[in-house]
Each structure stands twice: as C-alpha cells, then as structure tokens.
C-alpha cells in the first residue's frame, strides 16, 4: 500500500471525547459562514483525503502550487485548495474563527494564519489554462471573494449524510484494504451511471490488481446530470449482479468537480493514493469540459510526476463491437465503425427520458431496470 501523499495521513478531526467542549468554545469565536462546497473541502482536509494539507493554502503554498504544481517541500500538488472571503470581511490574521455551514453548530475551527489577495485572472489562467468565463471553473473563480484565508483547520463534528453507509475515510479504507489482503488496488472515479464500457475498463484493470475501489463523486451537479442517488443505485445493482464482493468496494467522495482537466486528473490520483490505492484509472479527457483541453492532456501531465506514488492507468476509447461480441478498444478490435455501438451519454439520457430500456450492448439489464424505476434520475 502506498504511504499517504507527503508521507503522513493527516487527521484534523477533534477526538470524540473533546468534541462537546470544543464545540462550546467554538460558539464564542468569530463566526464565518461557509458554503456546502467549502464545508466538504474542510472535511476532506480533516479526514486526510487531501494529505499532506492540514488546512487551506497559505500564500507561499498557494504561489508554489499555482506556479509549479508542487507544495514548497516539493510534494506534487496541482490544485489550490483555498478559502475565499469577500474583501471587507471582519477577519484578522492570527485569529481563530469558527466555520459555520448551517445554523445548527459550527462545523470546524480555523487558525487564520494569513490573508492574501486573490488575482482571479491569474488563478484562472494558471489552474484552468484559460480566462474564458464559459469554463465552469473560471466562472466560479470570477465569482470568488477577493481575499484568501490560509491556515489549519480542525473538524468539530460530522455532518449528517444521506450516503452514510457509503462514506469511508482514508483511515478506514486503508484498514479495509489490508484486512482484505489487497496489495494492488485500482481506483475508478465516476460521475455517471455505469455502462458496459465502464465495466470493461474496471474489470480489465482489476484483472491485474487485487481489488477495485469504485469512487463516485457526490455533490453539486449540473442540471441534466444523473442524480447522486441514481449513480449509487445503478452501481450497487451492477456490483450485486456482476462483481465479486470480495474484490470490489464502492465508497463515495464528497467533492466539487473543478473541470480543471490535467491538473485535476493528478489531484484525483492523489486523493485515491491517500485512500490507499496503488493505481488510478485515467480516462479520455479526464476532468475536462467542452473543448478546453486536449483529449489526452490528462494522460500526458503524469509524465511530469515520477514521484506521485500512484500509477496512472490510461484508457482511451472503447465501444461495443457486434462482430467481436463484446466491449473492445482500439488496440484489440480490427472491425470498422459499422460494427460498433458507441457508449453515448447523451443517447442514454434520451432513452431514459423516453422511458425506453437501453439495449444490453450499452447497459446491463439489471442496471437499466433500476435506472428506469427511479422517479427522478436527473438533476432538475
């Protein structure tokens, strides 16, 4: 199993025994309201998913990540994890603040070690490779507050989650993998319901590993995307009918997609390394959006990180071949496009909306049944 990124698994969760007292203390601190996306960032830091980060980036770290894709200690780190506030917010360096996501109780405390300005255009250029506001990451950056707060966080409580049974933290998956005797674990990230192509990729990779870590990204989505419930229910059906229980595990990741293409692909790999995975499947145009990135930019960037500590497994295109009678990729099938059924997300969406059962060349019948039985499979 790989060591956590940076060498140590970060744990910034206040121990159960101290929780009540620390929550009470936090109520008297200066309160800072954070968004659900920011709250998930705090949780990911605290549970070690973002190891070695112990908090939001300070200025030197931010500069180093934006410019060199590395933390000052030379540890690979490609996405700036930052907490923005509006200019004029009543917060000062050296103070500890309480971070509130809702009105119930503070979620976390943060030592505000540094406050520094955000150059939105530079941030967009460096992280997303563009200043085009039609890129969702750039649009979000342009709407960010003008100041960034850097400093360590501590998580005071675990918010309720409808996905409780599917939520495991790196500390837990690492024990799980060891107990199952998995030495080589391949991670698969997804934001979609599984079609035969996904299954093919996962099982091809699993053939050379001991275990498969299916890690759907749960969180804010665009209108028309499959809902979190649809993704989990269909994957569960696929696992129940077509996977060995002792060889696969599904755990959700609450995380906001940035669509930062190659930079984000590396970040995705780092997160899975912290979960204890040895390999990470990188698809075509991984974490991309529109035509902002070359389809294989997310493959090439890994050449710059020989020290990542997790092996990327690259997949290009795959389709169902009627003549071969199965899912194929461009390296193994000699037949032409007339024999192929492409895995089109748009086509699948249209069929589901029309109440039509997708064919078994695209999606397993058990998965299709679950999908069609859902009241609202898409985000409205």
């Amino acid at each position, binding site marked *: 199993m790989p060591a956590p990124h940076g060498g140590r698994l970060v744990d910034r969760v206040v121990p159960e025994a101290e929780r009540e007292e620390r929550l009470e203390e936090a109520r008297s601190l200066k309160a800072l309201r954070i968004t659900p996306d920011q709250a998930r960032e705090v949780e990911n830091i605290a549970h070690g998913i973002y190891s070695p980060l112990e908090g939001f980036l300070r200025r030197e770290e931010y500069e180093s990540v934006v410019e060199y894709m590395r933390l000052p200690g030379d540890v690979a780190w490609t996405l700036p994890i930052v907490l923005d506030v509006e200019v004029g917010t009543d917060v000062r360096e050296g103070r500890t603040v309480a971070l509130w996501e809702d009105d119930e109780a503070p979620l976390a405390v943060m030592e505000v070690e540094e406050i520094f300005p955000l150059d939105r255009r530079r941030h967009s250029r460096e992280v997303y490779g563009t200043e085009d506001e039609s890129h969702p990451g750039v649009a979000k950056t342009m709407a960010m507050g003008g100041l960034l707060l850097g400093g360590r966080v501590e998580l005071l409580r675990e918010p309720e989650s409808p996905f409780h049974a599917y939520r495991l933290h790196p500390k*837990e998956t690492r024990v799980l993998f060891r*107990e199952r005797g998995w030495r080589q674990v391949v991670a698969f990230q997804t934001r979609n319901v599984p079609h035969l192509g996904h299954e093919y990729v996962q099982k091809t990779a699993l053939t050379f590993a001991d275990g498969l870590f299916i890690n759907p990204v749960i969180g804010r989505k665009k209108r028309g995307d499959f809902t979190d419930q649809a993704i989990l229910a269909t994957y569960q059906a696929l696992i129940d009918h077509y996977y060995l229980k002792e060889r696969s595990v599904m755990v959700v990741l609450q995380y906001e997609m940035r669509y930062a293409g190659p930079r984000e692909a590396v970040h995705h790999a780092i997160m899975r390394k912290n979960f204890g995975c040895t390999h990470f499947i990188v698809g075509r145009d991984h974490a991309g959006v529109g035509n902002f990135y070359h389809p294989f930019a997310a493959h090439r960037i890994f050449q*710059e*990180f*020989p020290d990542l500590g997790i092996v990327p497994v690259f997949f290009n295109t795959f389709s169902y071949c009627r003549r071969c009678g199965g899912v194929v990729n461009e390296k193994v099938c000699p037949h032409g496009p007339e024999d192929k059924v492409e895995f089109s997300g748009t086509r699948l969406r249209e069929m589901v909306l029309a109440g039509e059962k997708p064919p078994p060349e695209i999606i397993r019948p058990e998965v299709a049944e679950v999908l069609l039985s859902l009241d609202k499979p898409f985000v409205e």
Partner: protein
Amino acid sequence: MIRKKEEERDSKFTTVSIPTPLFEKIKKRIEGTGFTSVSSYVVYVLREILAEESASQDEAFTREDEERVKERLRSLGYLD
C-alpha cells in the same frame, strides 16, 4: 517588479555540479524526448528515486484506532 520576480524564481532553484561527460551523455540521451533540458531530466530522475525510497513508510495507527475502524467496517458490512 520584474527583478523581484526573477529573484523569487531564482530562490526556488539551486545549482548542483555534475561531471561534464555525464552532462554531455544526458544531453544526448534526452534528444527527441519530452525533456527540454538536462536540468529537467535530472530533476525527474531524482524525484523518481526519492519517491521510491519514501514509498514504504508505515502508517501510525494506534491499536485502539484500528479496532474502532474495524468495528465500523463490520457494522457497515465491509468486513465479515
């Protein structure tokens, strides 16, 4: 402003001496590859070697921690 930026950049890099024949050998070796300089190749190789050395560090779980984790994994059906 430009000077300050250059100083900042220079402070992030330092010089290491290697024998000239080795430098020439590397220069030849990287022709036609994605490496744009001997420096970038040397940095790549060193990072790779150092990463291999630090890959097998142990996790620091206490026995109590581990038992608590196993209990949760059993309760959720991940472990028998």
